[in-house]
């Protein structure tokens, strides 16, 4: 076993176990992408094969058919409690990317999750975000308290000194926990290879293109690539200068600014 990956894994598993010990009702979010699949796998390893909390998949109904197939197959094989969150009301009212990508994301992802948290009273959510994905995510901590509107005050976060992950006593609706925050895209792929994890086929090149990051069908575009195996993907990442989320139409900076300007009353 690669000792570097072993160190990454050890730290992530320790965080996941802390979540189970500190929170009454945690859950893990799973998009079926490589990062969240690796995270669900880490949850499995942390508890010796049986994940002791639900796995949440947010279904916008605009995802690739391969995502649904992969989700159902793995949920069966890995035998966990899968909860599918869907904002049926917004879908009935015709919400789609045509009504504005950000509005669509807010309704079909954020609101769907908000409703589920309220309904199931989750107090901690494990997410597979990584610091190297985006500048905004670089400010994240392993424990990230959120209010009921999912607002995140990055200037007021737990200190996390000496790798101690402590739940603040109050003033948060739920805690976001990021056990693979310290991993890079390359680390995840090397871990996928080492652990022989299942991978969504969309990641592998077909006709000179592959998806490097998975989202909803109308808002995700493939990148030019010939990498059709995990080894080829690892080689491609090592030599690429293109950001991982280059194929995602939803611009996180733009989304952040829109939310910030809204909170200031501009819109």
């Amino acid at each position: 076993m690669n000792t570097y990956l072993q160190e990454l894994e050890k730290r992530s598993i320790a965080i996941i176990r802390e979540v189970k010990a500190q929170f009454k009702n945690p859950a893990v979010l799973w998009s079926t992408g490589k990062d969240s699949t690796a995270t669900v796998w880490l949850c499995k390893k942390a508890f010796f094969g049986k994940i002791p909390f639900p796995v949440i998949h947010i279904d916008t109904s605009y995802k690739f058919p391969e995502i649904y197939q992969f989700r159902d197959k793995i949920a069966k094989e890995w035998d966990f409690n899968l909860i599918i969150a869907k904002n049926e009301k917004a879908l009935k009212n015709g919400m789609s990317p045509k009504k504005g990508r950000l509005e669509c994301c807010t309704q079909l992802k954020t609101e769907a999750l908000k409703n589920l948290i309220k309904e199931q009273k989750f107090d901690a959510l494990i997410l597979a975000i990584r610091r190297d994905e985006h500048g905004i995510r670089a400010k994240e901590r392993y424990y990230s308290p959120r209010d009921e509107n999912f607002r995140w005050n990055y200037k007021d976060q737990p200190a996390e000194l000496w790798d101690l992950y402590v739940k603040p006593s109050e003033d948060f609706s739920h805690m976001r926990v990021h056990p693979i925050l310290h991993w890079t895209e390359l680390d995840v792929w090397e871990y996928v290879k080492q652990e022989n994890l299942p991978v969504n086929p969309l990641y592998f090149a077909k006709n000179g293109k592959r998806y490097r990051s998975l989202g909803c069908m109308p808002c995700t575009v493939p990148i030019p690539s010939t990498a059709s195996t995990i080894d080829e993907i690892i080689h491609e990442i090592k030599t690429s200068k293109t950001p991982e989320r280059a194929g995602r139409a939803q611009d996180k900076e733009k989304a952040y600014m829109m939310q910030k300007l809204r909170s200031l009353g501009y819109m």
Partner: protein
Amino acid sequence: MIILALDALDIHCVQKFHCKNLMQKEYGQTSLKGFNQERTIVLWASFLTGKNMEKEIPIKTQWTFQLQPEQTFLKFFQKYKAIDLPSFSYKQQNHEEERKLLKGYFEDKVTVEEYESLIWKNHEENKKDFFKELGKTPLLIGYFNLADAIGHLSFGLTEKMAIVYNELDKIAEEVKNSEDFILIVSDHGMKAVGRYGDHSRNGFYSLNRALGLNLPEITSFYNIIRGIAENEYF
């Protein structure tokens, strides 16, 4: 007395773009200690009244909030002119159009160029109004939102922001020899979020005489302006 109220003017950009006219005899940062958010209307209303107006101005009705002269330091002046000053003489229609286009940009209906063209048009209008009044009243306040409005969509684009800061520096240059006391002040600063710009927690101030202020708050200027009006500094 002249007050240049420059929305979102940021000390780091003033220095980076060598805006020597904005950097007067004394200049520095202001603190937003005590304010939960960096809301434009709240901060300018607080500047005018000398007290934190955050609780008094609800976010939903903030853009139409209007102070009376007797609630502000304007009451210390027999005559004054305030061009487009938020919470006092704010050009509602112009700014409503700006916000509409800003929203349109985030909904992919409006381009940055279309939005910026309106911002520059409104800026030119304010400039015209401002210079028309120069030298005619004991107190002239000119509000310019160029750094804020352009910055929100382009603060990360150095070349574009250099043009904005150069323009504001030119305004400062044109007024610098015309009055005894010049205060240049911003409500908050700005920080880059990729190509975009978010409000930062420090504003900017600049005085053409040294008063030895140390990280003042936006409300601190009320008493200074009253002192000027009452000739304390002469």
